């Protein structure tokens, strides 16, 4: 890394100035100080707003406005301070700057000396760690799979993103395919907006409005409906709930209108709510059925889901508590991985995930929460598809090696200095004489 001088600020030296700036200790310090600050503020913010909101605001952002009142109780006389917005760089910007600073200052421009080899390796390890963080952020797909004993699954569900599904039904009332409106197209519907969706395969257009992040449909006959705002549809209104701190607990709802393309016949309007989804893995989500142009359809809110290239069957779920207390001692799943007809029995435990074909299955939790002893229980796996899964481990090994070399050399240098000084002293004295 280098230091800037006044000459660097001459216009003709702009490229040099930029290189100097991006490789400077000054930038490293500023970035590190701001990273410490946003880490602190993002931690405190979680207390009132939850982890997901904190991540979005502080760590997955370029810039942000922080208010001191967030997570930090202030005495009444100082509450005004809490309302002052403090503009700050976000996590994206800081990590980008840090990566550039490390790459230019600590790898490219640094003087390659024998003494600096340890630091060179350690900084390289850190860059690798930052890159792995970026790859994880950009390409990791995470969800969960919940199975009862004997159940087989090959699809992963998202924790917090919901989509609207239209199912054309055959005469037996079954669906061969589903058309979906993705979460992003739903959550971006603003208040008062009516967004239209068209599909060539469907005899109707879909108009979506009144998107609510977390709401409960209540019958207008219920006294609580007095608190509900918005339109009444089919004898129901949406009672808006405060968004939960835990983003996965929010259950969105919309008003959907199915408008026949032919112009003949009446439009069908309904409230579709994530609350209709059945959260027990044994049952699918409840759907709203309707008929247009003599054909039957169903619509429902379901969690976004995607396939894995193999199936997993839960053979046995083992759940143990420490004797006499409710604290879980162990939970593990005996599963069979099924791929192209071949079956392989495996175990997934806490701290011992199953890694296969780019996917990792972790023992995450179990349910139902109200299960009594002897009741059937399901096992829930967190499923990740992260290309950078093991990169942090490699970066740790690199960084540790670099730091050990560097600090080892420094320590050796420090401890041998008195001996060197002592050895040099007589010669010095002789020279003086």
């Amino acid at each position, binding site marked *: 890394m280098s230091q800037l001088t006044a000459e660097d600020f001459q216009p003709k030296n702009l490229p040099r100035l930029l290189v100097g700036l991006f490789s400077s200790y000054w930038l490293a310090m500023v970035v590190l100080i701001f990273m410490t600050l946003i880490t602190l503020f993002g931690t405190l913010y979680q207390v009132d707003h939850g982890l997901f909101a904190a991540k979005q605001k502080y760590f997955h952002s370029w810039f942000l406005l922080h208010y001191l009142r967030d997570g930090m109780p202030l005495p009444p006389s100082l509450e005004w301070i809490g309302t002052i917005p403090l503009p700050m760089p976000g996590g994206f910007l800081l990590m980008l700057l840090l990566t550039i600073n490390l790459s230019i200052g600590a790898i490219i421009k640094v003087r390659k000396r024998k003494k600096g080899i340890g630091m060179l390796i350690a900084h390289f390890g850190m860059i690798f760690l930052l890159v792995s963080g970026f790859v994880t952020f950009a390409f990791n797909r995470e969800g969960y799979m919940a199975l009862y004993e004997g159940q087989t699954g090959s699809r992963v569900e998202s924790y917090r993103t919901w989509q609207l599904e239209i199912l054309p039904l055959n005469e037996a009332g079954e669906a061969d395919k589903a058309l979906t409106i993705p979460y992003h197209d739903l959550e971006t519907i603003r208040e008062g907006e009516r967004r239209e969706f068209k599909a060539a395969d469907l005899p109707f257009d879909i108009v979506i409005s009144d998107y609510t992040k977390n709401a409960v449909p209540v019958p207008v006959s219920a006294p609580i409906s007095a608190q509900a705002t918005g339109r009444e549809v089919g004898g129901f209104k949406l009672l808006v709930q405060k968004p939960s701190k835990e983003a996965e607990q929010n259950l969105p709802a919309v008003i959907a209108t199915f408008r026949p393309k032919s112009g003949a016949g009446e439009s069908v309007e309904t409230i579709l709510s994530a609350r209709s989804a059945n959260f027990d893995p044994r049952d699918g989500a409840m759907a709203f059925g309707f008929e247009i142009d003599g054909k039957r359809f169903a619509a429902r809110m379901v969690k976004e889901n995607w396939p894995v290239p193999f199936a997993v069957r839960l053979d046995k779920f083992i759940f143990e508590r420490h004797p006499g207390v409710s604290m879980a001692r162990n939970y593990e799943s005996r599963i069979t991985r099924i791929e192209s007809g071949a079956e392989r029995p495996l175990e997934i435990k806490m701290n011992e995930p199953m890694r296969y074909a780019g996917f990792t299955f972790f023992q995450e939790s179990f349910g139902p929460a109200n299960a009594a002893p002897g009741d059937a229980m399901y096992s829930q796996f967190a499923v990740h598809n992260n290309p950078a*899964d093991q990169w942090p481990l490699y970066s740790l090994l690199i960084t540790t090696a670099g730091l050990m070399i560097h600090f080892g050399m420094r320590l050796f240098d420090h401890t041998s200095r008195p001996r060197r000084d002592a050895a040099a002293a007589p010669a010095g004295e002789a020279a003086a004489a």
Partner: protein
Amino acid sequence: MPLPHPPEKLPPPDLSESHFSNPRSLLISMKTVKRFRALAAAVLAMATAGPAGVQAKDVSVPFDTYPEWPAEVTDTFRQMLVQEGGRVKPVHTYARFMLMQFSGRSKVTFESKDGQSHNAEAVAWLLDTLFRPQLSADLPIFVVDDSEAVSRIGVEPKEKRDRYSYNDLLPGRSKLAELTAEYARKKQQYDDSEKNPQYELDRIEGMVLVLGQNVSNFEYLMSQFGFARKGEALTHESVLPAELKELAKRLDMTEMLDKMPEMTVNQLVQAVQAPAAPDDDQAMLKSAMQLFFFHASSGRGFSIFPPPAKETEEWMSIGDVMLTGLEKKDMRPWAIERMNEVKALVEAGTKDGATFSAALKKFADDHHAEADGRGRGEGDRSEMEVKLYQGNYFTNSLAWFVLAFVLLAVSWLAPGSAFSKYLTWGVVGCLVIGLFYNVYGITLRCLIRHRPPITNLYDTVIFITGTGVLLALILERMTRIGVGLFVGTVAGVIGMFLSIKYEAKEATDTMGQLVAVLDTNFWLATHVTIINIGYAAGILSAILGAVYLVGRISGLRKGDRDFYRVLNRMNYGVICFCLFFSLVGTVLGGIWANYSWGRFWGWDPKENGALMICLWTLVILHGRMGGYLREIGINVNAVLLGVIVTFSWWGVNNLGVGLHSYGFTDGVWKWLLISWAICGAVMFCGLPLWLRERADRQEKQNAAPSGRKKPKPGGSAAQPA
């Protein structure tokens, strides 16, 4: 069990005839304790003192004399096994933490009417509670930090902070039960509503809730063996109709169990709740069942009986034994045998000390044989555990660190003298002995649990203290300027003091079971240990920074620039050490998280705290390399590093959010804020030093011949500190 009506005050126990011999040997041994133990006791007393300096005092109790338990009785009893908190442990541990929970101390101090002061240990107190409940009800064991809490339940308050006996609180028992239920509901609403302030308990409400829970737990303990007392000293007697009290004197529960039909607990409850019986026989049977249910439900919680089936892990209390005998006829002979054992023990308790001692010994031997016979290794390290607590290793460690500090302070009176030199060696010796006690205690804890040194927050305190002292001794060996010794004594005294204080505050088993995710010795040994070494280095760096700043501002060794240069270099080394361990520990934690939770980094508060330590050490090291931070700046930031370490170590656990819920604690903000205020004041010392240095430098530049190039570190407009 909440009581619907205030029970009548129990008659004062008749203890004019002492049933137990008074072990004078115990008193003699108390007199011959070594001096450092007295010092330790003084410090310990400070550690367990309440707010506003109110210290527990000898409280007079309304009985003439306190017959102390013979040593062989307490020694036998302490080694017995009980299952609690998911593990089998010695009764000594159980009694110690139970009493701490009620009293904030592991002993009961009181004065009997004969003027004798008594200092009953927890095991003796538990013996009293189980076998002499009337006496135990008069012991002052319930600590109340604010008398407003007892006023609220209609009990006459004593001092602002004081200890009350069960009988002191009895007049307000029904109000206490009512308020406890109300505040427990409110607390539940607070938790369910994601901490809506509307439901937050205020300080007094919190105290009443804790008091109510403690009194209820105490009642369960007192009534454990109630069925064997022939209707005497029934703790929950107020819920019994008069005819049942009479029946309790005549009816033998063991004989009754033998004759009862096989029935489930639900069937028993239905029978008890059935409408009035048509004839006398039926009415009598119903009363008997009510009484049986009363004794069985009162006798739950103290699980000392290993189940006969080897594959069953859950031990039983006498209440569980009674209900098991009721439910399964084939288990009835076993249940009756256990009940008879308890009866024999309670009966022996009413006779002389030797009889009771022999009965207890037999009971304990049978009990151990039964546990051993299961072949599950339950309680196989209980002797070691008793030794750990009886050895008072951590208290001794504190005492030696205090002694080291005192010697060090005395050595400052004659710096450079031979006397001072000898004292300095004394300080080294005391620190080494204190460290030995600390390491020995930690090692025993590892052996007892078969775990690495750190599995919970309490472990971190003793481990970080030991590591800090060891690092300080190494620093002293390398630099020999005396600062390592000073820092070692400060770290040792503060750390061990904190461990005692924290143990008393939490009052729960510090060797409890682990949640499933922590059940991995590999990650506990690597990530957890390494990151805590990083914490220790961070704290040490902060103390070194404080020594530097306070030393310079106070003019200590004025003019001795070499001293401060060495000190600064020492701190630089410690910061590098801190970075290495914090960084490696943090990344290891990420890798563990990637194995258990499926992601390397999740911005969880505990992860963020560790990251902040790494970031701040990097700020210091890059600031130093860039020339932005010199000696003063480095040391000011080292103190700030200490603030960040304490936030990461304690603060994030107090936030109550995140995946590291197994480490949550509360009630530490006040102490953290105080420590941060002190750190802020120390950091402020850097400002005048920096201004003075800048002025000196300016003066030198002005005095230097013109044309000399001005030094310009890092392109910063301001001069670095």
